[in-house]
Structures are given as structure tokens and as C-alpha cells.
């Protein structure tokens, strides 16, 4: 038996071969899949936008329709992000530091915007505030317009970007524990002082991460906003809506230029996210 070492080695070699092939195949599949689904489309956006040179690209970015859409999106984010940050902080604190009846129900309700289709979310707002909705007649008689106007778009943005801060802050709050806060209290700190001096510094990276994601979603949301906006150019058209509209009107370069801006924003978000994730560790 031992006189034939070739035979002894063979199965071992086979196993070695398989061992080195499995990861290679898996990596290959992943790269090809990501290429088809992610990298090539993303690269194409940049290619199309700059196809006619940077001059055309920047010209597209100075058109009034684009500028109005960009400022509207900025406005939505500037209002929605602080509101959801403050709400998210309060909710996360209430849910981690207190045990009360209905707590787990609240926790799952907060996730609703994640699980519900954005279109349905928009529709819910229409059914409430639309001309024929519950509050419709009252709003109408008081001359307040929500649907097909900025308030409706803001509500939709608030809804879809609501869970991020809560979801990011709850685990860091839980990890930090209540003991440091209790220690601050025994040293004479009021709840307000404790929050600013102990709680907030402890959760700052997680919070910032949540804010970043909230912002990305607020600026990028299409579905819910499109249902309630009415999509009037230079009035109720946010950046994502502008991209779609321009594309439909065969203003491909214009669409791609705006898309590049949104994509750039997303890349920036990812970079920050990466930095923050390292900081939290």
C-alpha cells in the first residue's frame, strides 16, 4: 500500500482542488451579478451624462427645471431630516429606557415604512388629505392644499425616512446601558444635563449614521412622493421626479446629469457611512 504513494495522495489532491475552486466560483458569481445589476448600470449613468462633454453636463445642471427640482429636494431634506432626528431620538430613548405596555407593538409599527410599499404610503396620504379624503372637505373649505403641494410631499418624505434614526439609535442606546446615566444622576446631573453630557456623546456615531441614511432616503424617495406631488415642473417636482420626467421627454442627457448628482450623493453617503461605522467600533 505504502509502496504506491501516488494513490494515497490522489484523494487529498482532489479535495484540495475543490477547496480552492468553491470560493473562486462564488466570487465569480458575485462579481458578475454585481456587475450586471449594479456596476455597469451605475457606470453607464456617468458615461451617458458626460457623453457630450462636461460642458453639456454643467449646462444641464443650470437649467431652471433642474435648479427648481434640486432646491425642492434640498428643502424636503432640510425639514424632514431634523424632524425625524429629533423624533427618532425621543422614540429610541422612550423605547429602550422604559418598559411599558404596548412597547413591542410600537417597536414593530415604527418599522412599517420599511415594509410597506412607498406607493401605498403615498396613497394613504391621498386617502386622508386628498379632495375626497377624510380631511378633504375641511381642508378644502379652509383653503389648505396638502396633496399635489409641498406639504403632501413633505409628509410622504417624513413617512418613508422615519425609521432610520430610531433603528440606528436603539442598539447603541441599549449597548451603552442605563448605568452611565444613573451615575450622572447620582453626581447631581439633571436629566437634561445627563442627556447632553452623557447620553448624546455615547450614541453620537450611531445617531449620525441614522441621520445620514435618513437624508439619503429623504433626497432619493420617488414612489411615495410621486403619488402625492402631482409632478408639476418647477413647482412640485423633486430631483428624482425630475429625472424620470426628463427621461420620459427624451431629454436623456438632462436625466442622466441629474441622476449623476443623486448617485454622487449616494456615494458620498456610503463613504461617510463607512467612516462612521469604523468610528463606532
Amino acid at each position, binding site marked *: 500500500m505504502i509502496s504506491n504513494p501516488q494513490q494515497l495522495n490522489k484523494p487529498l489532491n482532489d479535495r484540495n482542488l475543490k477547496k480552492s475552486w468553491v470560493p473562486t466560483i462564488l466570487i465569480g458569481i458575485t462579481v458578475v451579478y454585481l456587475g450586471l445589476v449594479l456596476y455597469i448600470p451605475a457606470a453607464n449613468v456617468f458615461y451617458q451624462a458626460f457623453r457630450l462633454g462636461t460642458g453639456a453636463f454643467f449646462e444641464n445642471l443650470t437649467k431652471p427645471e433642474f435648479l427648481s427640482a434640486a432646491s425642492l429636494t434640498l428643502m424636503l431634506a432640510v425639514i424632514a431630516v431634523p424632524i425625524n432626528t429629533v423624533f427618532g431620538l425621543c422614540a429610541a430613548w422612550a423605547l429602550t429606557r422604559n418598559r411599558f405596555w404596548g412597547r413591542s407593538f410600537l417597536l414593530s409599527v415604527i418599522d412599517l415604512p420599511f415594509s410597506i410599499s412607498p406607493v401605498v404610503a403615498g396613497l394613504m396620504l391621498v386617502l386622508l388629505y386628498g379632495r375626497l379624503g377624510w380631511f378633504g372637505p375641511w381642508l378644502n373649505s379652509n383653503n389648505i392644499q396638502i396633496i399635489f403641494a409641498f406639504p403632501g410631499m413633505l409628509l410622504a418624505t417624513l413617512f418613508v425616512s422615519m425609521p432610520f434614526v430610531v433603528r440606528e439609535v436603539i442598539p447603541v442606546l441599549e449597548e451603552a446601558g442605563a448605568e452611565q446615566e444613573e*451615575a450622572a444622576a*447620582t*453626581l447631581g*446631573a*439633571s436629566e437634561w*444635563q445627563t442627556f447632553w*453630557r452623557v447620553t448624546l456623546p455615547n450614541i453620537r456615531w450611531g445617531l449620525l449614521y441614522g441621520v445620514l441614511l435618513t437624508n439619503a432616503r429623504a433626497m432619493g424617495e420617488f414612489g411615495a412622493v410621486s403619488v402625492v406631488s402631482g409632478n408639476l415642473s418647477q413647482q412640485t417636482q423633486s430631483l428624482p421626479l425630475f429625472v424620470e420626467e426628463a427621461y420620459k421627454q427624451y431629454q436623456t442627457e438632462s436625466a442622466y446629469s441629474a441622476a449623476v448628482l443623486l448617485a454622487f450623493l449616494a456615494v458620498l453617503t456610503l463613504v461617510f457611512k463607512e467612516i462612521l461605522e469604523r468610528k463606532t467600533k
Partner: protein
Amino acid sequence: MVSSQQFTQRLFTPRFINKVIKFMGICVQDVSKRFGDFQALDRVSVDIESGSLVALLGPSGSGKSTLLRSIAGLESPDSGRISLMGEDATDRSVQDRKIGFVFQHYALFKHMTVRRNIAFGMEIRKMAASRVKARTEELLDLVQLTGMGDRYPSQLSGGQRQRVALARALAVEPKVLLLDEPFGALDARVRKDLRAWLRRLHDEVHVTTVFVTHDQEEAMEVSDRIVVMNKGKVEQIGTPAQVYDHPASAFVMSFIGPVNVLPTSSKIFQESGFDSAHPEMFLRPHDIEIALEAANNTVPARVARLIHLGWEIQAELELEDGQLMIANLTRDRYDRLQLEENQCVYVRPKEAKSFALNYNI
């Protein structure tokens, strides 16, 4: 001049009464606390003299932390009253109780340096910056961490963190210092050092101190008085010697120090004249006398095992009826007897106790 009527009035104003009872450090009266269905504290009453160092001792889940947190105001009792330095503090917030609290896992502020941790309470209380600075350095010296002020808690060892936590608590000059298992998370050696250090610190600073422990040796070594707790109740309060020599209950006897539990009907008690109406007798291992010759009140026993503990010898003895018990001998005595395993000896209890109430651990 103060008229005699005015004088009597002054005597009985509440303020005066407060002054009279000010020698009392902490006064816990009939405090109960429930968590859902669980009775964590059951009408607990404890008086702690001002300036003393007291241990709350008991098994896990006996309510020690709950009692300590109630004194601090971190937990609000369902009923009962708590006064600190003679003033009713039951309805006072944690912030207003002027206590120092040291948590089992230190609870240092992770994002602050040691120095800022220690200064925190003083800054909150709006002490002048120059005083804060001076006192922080003083405290760093006191807890032997000179030169480590700029480190973060994650850069310290467990023992060092513990001392930072102590310095932080002492910084605001608390009237009462409360420590929850201050040495629980440390290894045996550091623990022993810190224990002695805490005792010395207390003798220097003299602040009324209560600390929680489930280690009876720690309680005996460090404290002036021990409060023994079990199942949310106080079993006994006394000096270490009182608690050890005159345990108030079977629980205290068996929780503090080793003990043999034998049926009262056992021959060893009948021969030696120990009797009780209760079915069980408690016998400390060092209260068993061993001789080579039979005497009129001894019973025979077999040496089943000998364990050398260095400074003393532990003998496992088997009585005629098969009962096993542990006896401790000094090195001297052992050398004189020249004991060997399986040898037959004659034993006699010097001291045995029995307790009226229910025995449960």
C-alpha cells in the same frame, strides 16, 4: 434672653428633632419593593450609624442591590421611609440626596478622560474651575492614579477603573457613599488589595459607607457591621463577631462560615448533652474536639479523609451511624495526634446551635 417657654418650643421644633437624630447616618424603615410578582424587599428596616462602614451581605437575588439603589433614590420603594443624616429623603430625587454611588461595573463615562470623569460632579455642582482642578488632582493622588488623568477608561485595568469610580463618587463630598459589589468583577489578588485599601480610605475620609457583597470573608474583613439579607428580608444586623458567634438564624449560621448540619437525635449530641426541641443541630468545624482515647462524653468516628489546607487540617469524619461531618484542627493539634486516614478517633462537640425558625437557603 430666651424665656423657658421659648426654650421648650425650640426643643420640640422639627428642626431640633432632626438635629437630635443626626447621629443616625442612614435610616431605612419598613421599606418594601415589588417587581411584578416578585417581592424584592419585604419590610426591610436598617439603621446605619453615621461614619460607619457597613456591609450588605446575602446570596444572589436577596435584594441587596435593590436596597442600596433604594437608599440612593435610583429605585423608588413601594412603601416605607428612608432618611439620610436624619432628614427624610423618601421623596427626594437622586440628584438631591447628596450620595456617592459606585456601580458594580464602574459605569465610568467612556467618552471622557479620567480627569473629566472625576470632575463631572463638581462641574455639575458649579464649583469654581480652579477648585475643581485642584480637587481632581488631590483625588487622583488619593486613589493612587497620579499621572493617569489623561487616559480614557478603556485604557485602564479593572482595579484602576474601580478607583476612578470611587474618586468620582467622592469628588462631590457625599454624605453617604454606596458601593454595589465594588470588587465583584476583579480577580482575587486585586480584590484583597482593594479591600484593605477601602478600609484605610474609610478610616481617613470617614464618610458613612454601605457596600454590597456576597462574599462573607470580604464583609467580615472590611466592615464595622454586617447586614445579612435573605429573600428580601433582613436576617440579622451586627458586628462581624456577633454575626459569626451568635447567628440569629439557621440561614445566617450557614451563610457565614462553614457548618455541619446533623439531626438532633444523633448520638454525638446525646452523649455530650446538647439537646434541642428542633430537629437539626448546627456545628462549626472548629468546634469539634478530636481525641485518640474515649472519654465519658465522646463518640467514636472514623477519619475518612484528611485535607491539608496549610495553616490547618480539615478532617472528614464518619460517625457510627454513617453521618459525615467536617472538623478543622490546628497544625499543632494535628501533629500531636498524628492522625491518619481510616483511623478511629473519639469526638466531642464543644459548641452546637439550633434555631427555631424555618431553615431555608
